[in-house]
Every structure is written in C-alpha cells, then in structure tokens.
C-alpha cells in the first residue's frame, strides 16, 4: 500500500467537501485552503520521494487486478507534475487570501479551487484512459465555474468560447476512447500499449492517435487550436488566471506526453512529424500574437501558447535528450508563468488597470516589485542563470542533435521575440513615467497601505525563489528530468509495473 499515491487527490477532494460544509464561514474556508494546500505540497513531495526511490507506484482500485480495475500509477513525470500542482496550489491559496473579492468567496471560490486541484491531480495520476476523461471533466467543470465567478461581460464572452471549445475537445476525446476500446478492447493504458504493439493493422491506431492529438491539442492550446486561450484567460480575477495559466494547459501537455510516449509509438515518423510542425507553429504564432498585444495579461496569455510549443517540441523530437528538455521546460514554465500573472495582479492592485497605456512608474515607487517581475520575465526569455535558460538550452541542443534545424531556428527566434515582449512590459509598466491621466496614485506611492500586503508578496517571492533555485541547481533538476525521460522512453517499464504486479 502506498498512501502517498492517493493523498494528492484525496486532500483537495476532502478540503473541497469541507469547504462546502463550511459554506457560511468564509474565514474557516480561507484557513482550510492554506492548510490543505500545505498538506498537498507535503504529500506531493512524499510521492516524488517514493517514486525516485522505488520506481513506479501502482494502486489498483478495489483490489481488482489490472487490467480489470482502474489503476492509479505514479511515475517520476506524474510525481513532478503533482509537486508543481502543490507549489502552485499553495501559492494561489495564499494569494487568494488577499486578492479574491469577498463576493467570490461567498459564492464558493475555495471549494471550486480545491475541486480544480483534485481534477488536475487525478489527471496526472490515473493509469486508465477513460478515468483520465472523467478527471478532465472534473477539472473542466470547476474551471468553468471559476472562470465565470463575478459574471462580468468579458467573462461571459470569454467563457462561451472556453466552454465550447473544451466541450468539443472532450467529445473528440470520448469518441477516440470509444474507438480505441472498440479496436483493442481495454481501457487500461498499459494494457492498451501492449495490445497496440501486437495489432496487425496499425493504420486504424494512427487515425485514433490523430483524434487524441486534436483533443489534447485543444486542451494544451497548440496551433491551430489555441484561440480559446487568449480570448478567455485574461477575463477572470487574477488568482484564477494565474491558476489556469500555471496548470490547465499543462494537463493537456502531460496527456500528450503520456499517450505519445506510451501508446502511440507505432508510427513515430508520421505522428511525431505532425507534432513537430504543430510545435513550431505554436511557438511562432504565440509569440507573434503577444507582440501585437498591449494588455498585460493578454501578452502573458499569448506567451503561454508560445511556451507550449517548446514543450511539444521536446515530445515531437522524441529523443531522450529532447524529452528531458521538455520535462525540464514544463517544470520551469509552470512556476514562472504563474508568477508573472501574480505580478500582473499586484500591478493591477496598485494602478487599477491591465492596459499598458494606463500603467507606468512602478519601478520608481516599488523597485522590489520591479525586481520580482524581472526574475520570472527574464527566466521566461531564457536569460542565464535563471531556470528558463537551462530549459531552452536542453530543448535547442536536442533539436540540433536531431538535425531539425528549421524548427530549432524558430525556437531560437521565438526566444528573442519573448525577450522583446518582456522588455515591452518592463519599459511600459515599470520604467515609463506614470501617465498623466492616471489620477489615483495613492496605492502606488504607498499612502494607502493594504492590510494583506504579505499575502500578495509572499507567493511571488516564493515562486521567484523557486525559479532561482531551479536556475542555480540545474544539475539535480536535470537529473530528475533525466530519470523521468528514461521512464517515458522505455514504455515497457510502465507496462511491466502496471500489469506485472497483477501476476504476483
């Protein structure tokens, strides 16, 4: 028995249920939110520790042997993702204490946040393809409600696009699961992988793999399926934006990594070439979209799209080094991107706008905040010694070794354009004088003190410290990514861990 395997799902689920029970008492919900995310982080570190020590952890629900039962499986990639979920969950929980309007808190903000974390953790841990669909829906439903909390016009318009495209993607996912079940007669991912390898007609499997690629591609916001993301991510209140930006699209990326290393490796030439060009175009369109934007959170939203390209590039090159780079990139990106959104929230708090033309002069009055923006921003652009440098370096080196020169060239160019966008934000928000039409400067000058200032700054400082930590400790993090990549590149280890246990 490995209790750490289910704790990352059980803790947020229980916390969510308790929060509903404490519906009238927002104060206890707030305490519970911080408490449970601390526990989640602790459990996730425990899980990572166990997977590094013991390899795969497998738990069969109801003690039915796999492949008949639903299994939960943790390999190092899942464990890494769970740790990141814990870190982001804790950061968002603390930040929400200060940033969430009390109206949102009264209408179930905290229960929904817990439910979202449970859905994300479930998606990372399940070893059953239909169960993955169910966790996706848990996560989506919570995200729908979080996105629309507040009910402003922009939120409604963004939510319609977000809901429609995500439901469409779910329907494709469900159809693909049905077709896969019709072809191989099983839902357990390890069992599917085993049976797909022995199938006489791999053509059908390639068709199904394309359906999965489209479905997860929509969820991961890959080109040309990303339009819902920049239309919706800047509409909710900032803690929700940051939570989505950090975790949701990365669940899609994780699902792509899972199925395209474990199950659909029968026609790598075809499937991964499509992924490769999708990755290149994702990077390019994302970063060009960002260059045309002049709203803080919209620039960051487009950068999510472009960064997703790097992660998919790691998968598409499909060499051990590339997978290491992709995993490293995911680790770095989740922390950095959440942090940038949190900083945008603080700037909004100070000046009351996200539009670059209404912002300015933050460096003069809040130099510490400017520094806190600069750490994740330069890390995103890939400046050494921050985390982004090593992530980009590994991916690009893998691209050169695989002789995919065009795509690698695009990746380098995109790095440059990312720096351009970050400098644009820097000079507009931090360096430029405060525009004259901005009247209320009392918060910026520190004349009005917020009572919850620590809750704004603590997560930002913590995440910036994580970025620095990854940057300074490139070697151990790289080794962790290397172990994860080794497991991903050898799917027979996964199959043996899940199905081998049944024969004991």
């Amino acid at each position, binding site marked *: 028995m490995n209790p750490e395997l289910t704790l990352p799902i059980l803790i947020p689920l229980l916390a969510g249920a308790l929060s509903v029970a404490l519906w009238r008492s927002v104060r206890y919900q707030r305490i519970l939110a911080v408490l449970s995310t601390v526990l989640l982080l602790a459990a996730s570190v425990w899980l990572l520790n166990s997977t590094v020590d013991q390899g795969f952890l497998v738990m069969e629900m109801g003690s039915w042997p796999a492949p008949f039962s639903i299994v939960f499986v943790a390999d190092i990639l899942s464990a890494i993702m769970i740790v990141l979920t814990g870190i982001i969950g804790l950061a968002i929980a603390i930040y929400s204490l200060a940033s969430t309007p009390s109206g949102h808190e009264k209408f179930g903000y905290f229960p929904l946040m817990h439910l979202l974390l449970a859905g994300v953790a479930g998606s990372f841990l399940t070893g059953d393809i*239909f169960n993955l*669909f*169910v966790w996706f*829906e848990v996560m*989506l*439903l919570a995200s*729908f*409600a979080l996105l*629309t909390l507040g*009910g*402003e*016009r*922009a939120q*409604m*318009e*963004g*939510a*319609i*696009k977000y*809901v*429609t495209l995500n*439901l*469409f993607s*779910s*329907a*494709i996912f*469900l*159809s693909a*699961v*049905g*077709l896969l*079940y*019709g*072809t191989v007669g099983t*839902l357990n991912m390890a069992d599917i992988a085993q049976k797909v390898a022995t199938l006489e007609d791999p053509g059908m499997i390639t068709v199904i793999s394309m359906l999965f690629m489209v479905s997860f591609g929509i969820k991961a916001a890959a080109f040309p399926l990303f*339009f819902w993301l920049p*239309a*919706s991510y*800047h*509409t909710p209140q900032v803690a929700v934006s940051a939570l989505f930006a950090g975790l949701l699209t990365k669940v899609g990326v994780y699902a792509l990594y899972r199925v395209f290393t474990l199950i659909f490796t029968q026609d790598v030439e075809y499937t991964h070439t499509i992924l490769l060009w999708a990755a290149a175009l994702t990077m390019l369109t994302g970063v060009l979209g960002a260059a045309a934007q002049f709203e803080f959170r919209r620039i960051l939203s487009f950068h999510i799209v472009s960064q997703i390209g790097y992660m998919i590039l790691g998968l598409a090159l499909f060499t051990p080094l590339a997978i290491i780079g992709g995993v490293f990139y995911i680790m770095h990106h989740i922390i950095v991107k959440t942090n940038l959104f949190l900083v945008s929230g603080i700037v909004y708090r100070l000046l009351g706008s996200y539009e670059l033309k209404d912002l300015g002069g933050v460096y003069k009055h809040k130099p510490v905040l400017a520094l806190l923006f600069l750490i994740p921003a330069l890390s995103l652009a890939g400046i050494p010694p921050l985390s982004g440098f090593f992530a980009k370096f590994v991916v690009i080196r893998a691209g050169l070794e695989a002789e995919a020169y065009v795509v690698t060239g695009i990746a380098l160019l995109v790095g440059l354009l990312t720096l351009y966008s970050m400098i644009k934000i820097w000079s507009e928000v931090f360096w430029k004088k405060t525009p004259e039409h901005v009247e209320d400067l009392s918060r910026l000058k520190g004349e009005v003190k917020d009572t919850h200032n620590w809750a704004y700054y603590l997560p930002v400082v913590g995440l910036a410290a994580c970025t620095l930590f990854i940057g300074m400790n490139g070697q151990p993090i790289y080794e962790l990514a290397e172990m994860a990549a080794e497991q991903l590149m050898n799917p027979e280890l996964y199959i043996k861990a899940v199905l081998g246990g049944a024969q004991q």
Partner: protein
Amino acid sequence: MESLMAYVVGILFAAAIYMMLRRSIVKLVIGLMILSNAANLLIFVVSGMTRGAPPLIPEGADAPLGTVADPLPQALILTAIVIAFGVLAFAVVLIRRAYEVVGTDDLDQMKDTDT
C-alpha cells in the same frame, strides 16, 4: 444494423457541428448536446452490438456461456451521460447569463475579448 447506426452517428456529428457553427448561442448549446449524444452512440456502435444476450453468469459457472453483450461500453456511456448532463446544465445557465449581461444571443457581437 451496425452500418445503419454508423450512418446515424455520422449524421449526428455533422448536425452537431453545423449547429455549433451557427451564430446563435442557443443553437451552439443544442449543437453541444447533439455532439455528446453522437459520441455516446459512437462508443456503443464501435464496441460491438450484441442483441438479446445479457452478460449473466449462470449458477455454478465461472464465466458466461457463449457470446454475451459487453457491459463495459454501457457503463462508459452511462458515466459520459451523467458528465454531459452536468456540463450542459452549466452551459445552459451560462448562455442565459451571457444573454442577460451582453444583451444579445449573436456570437458575432461577442468579440470584445478576441482582439
């Protein structure tokens, strides 16, 4: 029977996508409803339809005798129906709220967040 059902599934998917491409948000949600039904029916068809053979194990036997219907796809569909029900209930509330806030049901008028 199976080829007939295959055509039905195909028509449902086509109808759903047609409805989703219309400009009215009400038709969009109707499209989503049809889409989830099409996916459910697809699972039912591709996993093999066996008529009149419930998967019951006779007394004293360890496994069902002869060919029986596969119960698993039905369990999958049931789960998917429940999920789709919840999600679509949300979607219906969403379009109502969106109509109240934006004051139109025309998707072409809802482009504020796109550019």
